[in-house]
């Protein structure tokens, strides 16, 4: 299978290798066409955002106003802080130039002269790796003022890295913009949307790292080619980060629509000890979990997962075997969202705290059946009542886990059982693969 985002080419992260393999030719091709043509091709390709909401990239670009004197901005979202997500760091490390080339094309399409690449603060190493690639691209004249000579075009764009500092909420697009502006990372009330009122009140487009890395091949090989890969309604390949109880955790690039069971059992090597699967979260920790007996036939793309009662999210597949203490897992997830709530909206700020407290109580064996209904009620009161989608991100896992695993939770309330959740340190060591090999 051909890989689009993380191709199997040795040293592809080096500018010379990238250029020798046709790198930066898509940008040149794009600059020979009109921005509207580019938007049209990306629309027709069916490319959908890889940052969580799976929104059409071309359509998003088309929202940028055409008649305005204000500067326009592109922001690349590399905040990657959703538990279970670890794909964008692979792009920073193994294919940074394709991301840079994608930025050139996207910026051209939306008339942006400045792009900020927001990278989470903890990714010190990947900030450095990406900055090195960016410096090389500047030196070679592919970015910045020299573009005019290199590509023979009037268009030029500057690309700057903005490093986060440890706040999950800054992955939310309006919070990300406030963070770049030097403010606390509070999400903004929408509307107005970023295309109208983004960075410094100017039209702004925000896209995920993986989304933009798909763009150069689409321009080079054509939208028809791309639209035929994987599931027609969500075409292309996706980077799946598989973690938890599998023999070969890692990031795998596969066509959309791959069977979840194939991904777990064939690609990621199955479950250690051939244990049964209790639960899978298919798209990062804020997405509804699936029961082990719900996995058969589930395909990994936005539409199929929606039909199965979950969501593709960021493609972070978290696998839990039958010995997992799901109450502790859910309590840990709730602790995360409580910690990361920015505190602007009462339902989110207070609700996430109650969720955590109630789940901790159940985990200690001091819960009662009433607590299960209480959890559902708290979750429902958060959903739809907040400024940003962190509210849903906190509520969904609770509501869906408690509903889908009702028996499990009922058996658990009132009883304190020591299920071994964290006993895997020694048993699985031989299977974990080093970072450098993940790509294969």
């Amino acid at each position, binding site marked *: 299978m051909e890989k689009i985002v993380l191709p199997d080419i040795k040293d592809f992260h080096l500018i010379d290798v990238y250029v020798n393999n046709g790198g930066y030719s898509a940008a040149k091709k794009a600059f020979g066409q009109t921005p509207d043509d580019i938007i049209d091709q990306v629309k027709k390709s069916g490319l959908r955002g890889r940052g969580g909401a799976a929104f059409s990239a071309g359509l998003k670009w088309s929202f940028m106003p055409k008649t305005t004197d204000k*500067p326009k901005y592109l922001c690349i979202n590399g905040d*990657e*802080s*959703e*538990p*279970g*997500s*670890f794909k964008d*760091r692979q792009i920073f490390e193994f294919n940074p130039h394709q991301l840079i080339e994608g930025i050139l094309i996207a910026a051209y399409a939306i008339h942006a002269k400045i792009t900020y690449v927001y990278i*989470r*603060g*903890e*990714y*010190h*190493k990947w900030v450095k790796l990406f900055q090195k690639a960016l410096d090389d691209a500047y030196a070679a004249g592919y970015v910045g003022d020299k573009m005019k000579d290199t590509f023979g075009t009037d268009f030029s764009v500057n690309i*700057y890295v*903005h*490093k*986060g*500092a*440890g*706040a999950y909420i800054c992955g939310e697009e309006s919070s990300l913009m406030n*963070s770049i*502006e*030097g*403010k*606390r*990372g509070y999400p903004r009330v929408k509307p107005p949307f970023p295309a109208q009122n983004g960075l*410094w009140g100017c039209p702004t487009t925000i896209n995920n790292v993986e989304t933009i890395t798909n763009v150069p091949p689409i321009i080079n090989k054509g939208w028809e080619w791309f639209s035929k890969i994987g599931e027609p309604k969500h075409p292309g390949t996706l980077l799946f*980060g*598989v*973690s*938890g*109880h599998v023999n070969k*955790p*890692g990031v795998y690039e596969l066509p959309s629509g791959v069977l979840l069971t194939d991904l777990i059992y064939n690609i990621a090597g199955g479950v250690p000890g051939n244990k049964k699967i209790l639960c899978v*979260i298919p798209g990062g*920790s804020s997405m509804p979990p699936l029961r082990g007996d719900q996995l058969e036939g589930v395909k990994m793309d936005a539409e199929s997962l929606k039909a199965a009662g979950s969501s593709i999210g960021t493609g*972070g597949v*978290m696998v839990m075997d039958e010995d*997992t203490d799901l109450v*502790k*897992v859910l309590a*840990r*997830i709730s602790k*995360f969202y409580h*910690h*990361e709530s*920015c505190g602007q909206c009462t339902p989110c700020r207070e609700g996430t705290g109650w969720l955590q407290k109630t789940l901790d109580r159940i985990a200690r064996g001091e819960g009662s059946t009433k607590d299960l209904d209480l959890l559902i009620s708290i979750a429902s009161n958060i959903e739809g009542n907040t400024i940003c989608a962190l509210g849903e991100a906190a509520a969904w896992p609770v509501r869906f886990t408690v509903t889908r695993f009702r028996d499990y939770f009922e058996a658990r309330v009132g009883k304190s059982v020591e299920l071994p*959740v*964290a*006993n*895997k*340190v020694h048993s*699985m*060591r031989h299977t974990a*693969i*080093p*970072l450098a090999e*993940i790509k294969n």
Partner: protein
Amino acid sequence: MEFKFTEENLKKIEEVLKKYPEKKPAVMPVLYIAQEQNGFISGEAMAEVASVLEMTKEDVLGVVTFYTMFHQKPVGKYHLQVCTNVSCMLRGGYRIYDYVREKLKIENGGLTEDNLFSLEEVECMGSCGTAPMIAVNEDFYENLDLEKVDQILESLKQKN
């Protein structure tokens, strides 16, 4: 303690300012520079950042307190960040965390008496596929077991 940026760092700040149409957006990168120079972000450092960027001290404080990676008190020479979020938890993250706590006899947010190690329980670091993990300052150590944790702590102690 008084805080003034070094000449070298003032030059770095000048470079940073070129990225943005105004001064305020430079607050995060400039706070990083202050933290690197001072070890943590003191009240004096915040005042200096505010003056360099023409912001109010309150605005700078607001930013510092919003982000977990800006430290308002000293951390150890080696700041250990152990992830206990789900993917790590499933592969022994809490075993690692508890082990480090017991071994160094410090709790979350604590600092050893010799100022060598500080400990922080952190949220997902993007190492879920190579879990469990500890970050030591800026470096990630992944695919850990207790034996490897021992080796890491020993080698850091040896360096001093």
